[in-house]
């Protein structure tokens, strides 16, 4: 049987996200309820969650969540981690037994800090984040059977093969408290399905859940790989995650410009812009980052330190609904998946194609 990474998969899925912009925390029950309502959008071959703010006691450490296929690759990976990081804590990620969740890999979590004196140097333009991301890419490329599926600070993703509601139960998400949750139910039509291929896809604090298919995948992949990323799974979502990490962390673009890069206005819309300044800026963005334009149908929810961003492709080939109530912003593939956890929202709207919903934590600027 072909494994994830040896096969490319078109998919249609469900996504949902909740953020409390004041940073108030809540457990995973609501997000599970929301994604469960859209059960029939997925087919049991992938479910996952990202949770932000869950490790306050280890907030200065990178939390590496790793799948291992066997103990020998764990030993190999442990050696690599020990060599490059100081390990504060290592443990199994707690799970509970759920009948539909089978073929479970070994699932470990490490709280680590890069060995700064040996590895990180300003002269080589390598900071902690860059160093950590390079190490993760190394593990995912070189340690066959190991996959780092989460690597941020004070956040974590939890994913696997199964329906999202079962994955949520399996990872005991009711025991975690986060100020922001995103979720995904997967409908890969031809996949053998592997735990690493479920969403969210992450690098450092970025996480992406995605409904759709990126037809520009290979163009985008070649582009990010020039900047040191390695797309190990051949799935389109992975490349979206790296694009945002590259544009915002490495190239220092403000998030709203990064959005314009991946979801650029049409040329004729740019020509109709009244302000010369805006016009020129959009032209430059399209010229410089032509290879980072994401084409094809998508709706995504991007999680990061500063908050949550939801975005559609420019001609809205996938559904996306947003709502607001009190301090919270909700986004989901279907309005009912919001209303089931949010009674009488103050505002409900369907974002236009290419127009992001930006919900940042208080104190963060757009």
């Amino acid at each position, binding site marked *: 049987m072909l494994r994830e990474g040896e096969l490319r998969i078109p998919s249609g899925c469900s996504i949902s996200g909740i953020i409390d912009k004041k940073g108030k925390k809540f457990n995973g029950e609501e997000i599970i309820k929301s994604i469960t*309502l*859209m059960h*029939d959008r997925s087919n049991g071959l992938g479910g996952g969650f990202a949770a932000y703010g869950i490790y306050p006691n280890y907030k200065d450490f990178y939390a590496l969540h790793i799948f291992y296929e066997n103990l020998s690759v764990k030993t190999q990976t442990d050696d690599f981690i020990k060599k490059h990081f100081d390990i504060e804590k290592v443990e199994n990620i707690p799970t509970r037994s759920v009948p539909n969740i089978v073929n479970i890999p070994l699932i470990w979590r490490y709280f680590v800090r890069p060995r700064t004196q040996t590895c990180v140097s300003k002269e080589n333009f390598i900071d902690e984040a860059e160093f950590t991301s390079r190490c993760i890419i190394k593990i995912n490329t070189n340690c066959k059977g190991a996959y780092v599926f989460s690597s941020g600070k004070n956040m974590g993703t939890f994913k696997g093969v199964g329906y999202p509601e079962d994955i949520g139960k399996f990872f005991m998400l009711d025991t975690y408290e986060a100020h922001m949750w995103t979720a995904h139910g997967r409908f890969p039509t031809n996949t053998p399905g592997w735990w690493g291929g479920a969403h969210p896809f992450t690098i450092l604090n970025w996480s992406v859940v995605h409904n759709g298919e990126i037809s520009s995948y290979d163009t985008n992949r070649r582009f990010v790989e020039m900047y040191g990323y390695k797309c190990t799974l051949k799935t389109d979502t992975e490349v979206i995650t790296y694009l945002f990490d590259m544009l915002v962390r490495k190239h220092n673009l403000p998030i709203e410009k990064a959005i314009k890069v991946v979801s650029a206005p049409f040329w*004729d819309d740019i020509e*109709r812009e009244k302000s010369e300044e805006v016009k020129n800026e959009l032209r430059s963005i399209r010229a410089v980052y032509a290879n980072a334009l994401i084409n094809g149908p998508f709706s995504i929810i991007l999680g990061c330190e500063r908050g949550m961003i939801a975005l559609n492709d420019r*001609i*809205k080939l996938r*559904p996306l*609904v947003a709502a607001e109530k009190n301090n919270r912003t909700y986004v989901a593939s*279907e*309005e*009912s*998946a919001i*209303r*089931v956890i949010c009674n009488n929202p103050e505002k*409900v709207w*369907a974002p*236009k*194609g290419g127009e992001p919903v930006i919900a940042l934590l208080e104190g963060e600027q757009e």
Partner: protein
Amino acid sequence: MKTIDALNVYYRDLNSLIDNSIETDSDITLKNIFGQRYIGRGLPKKAKLKIYGTPGNDMAAYMDGAEIEVFGNAQDAIGNTMNYGRIVIHGNCGDTLGYAMRGGEIYVEGDVGYRVGIHMKEYEEMNPVIVVGGKSGDFFGEYMAGGAIILLGLNLTKDEDMIGRFCGTGMHGGVIYLNGTPDKYRFGKEVAKSTNITSEDVLFLRKHIDFYKKTFSKQLNNLKIESFSKYVAVNKNPYSNMYCIY
């Protein structure tokens, strides 16, 4: 009149419950609807549904004469390939409303999403109609082959547009009536404004606008039939020469 509490009822169970109920009582009220799909699919003429909540995708797919009234917003692909009957939505509606619709009427009080009326068609006495009170997303009337869509564009704020872009792209039949004349760049090249507004057009508009007013209890004193413009396909058969050269 029968009332069904749909809270936590799986869509298949709900739809068979509706099928069974209309055998004895054709008036059904559904409460606590959260996203159940295919409600009213293939439902025949005698059935009347009142829906409270947010019905799921493909509501009224292949509907065959029933009447459905939704008190809330509806999701995507409502009225997919429906044949006969009427849908009234007291709220907004998502994308691909009236997808390949073949007959019947849909009235939406508020806004609608992308690709509304995509590939709706007509045949002899079957002439589907969609009436939308607010604004629409892009690709309004895309690949439209028949029937009529009326967009009232009510209550728009200054920075809101009545239609998005690519209106009538690929259109080769049917009529789009817009309350106003949006800029040309918003339309596909297969659609053009018609200067030929007949008395039949006026009667048709009046009839459906009156129904809209009555159904949603609106006055609409400022709404003038004269401000509507009519858009039709440039060519009824635009692709006929694509595969053979005469």
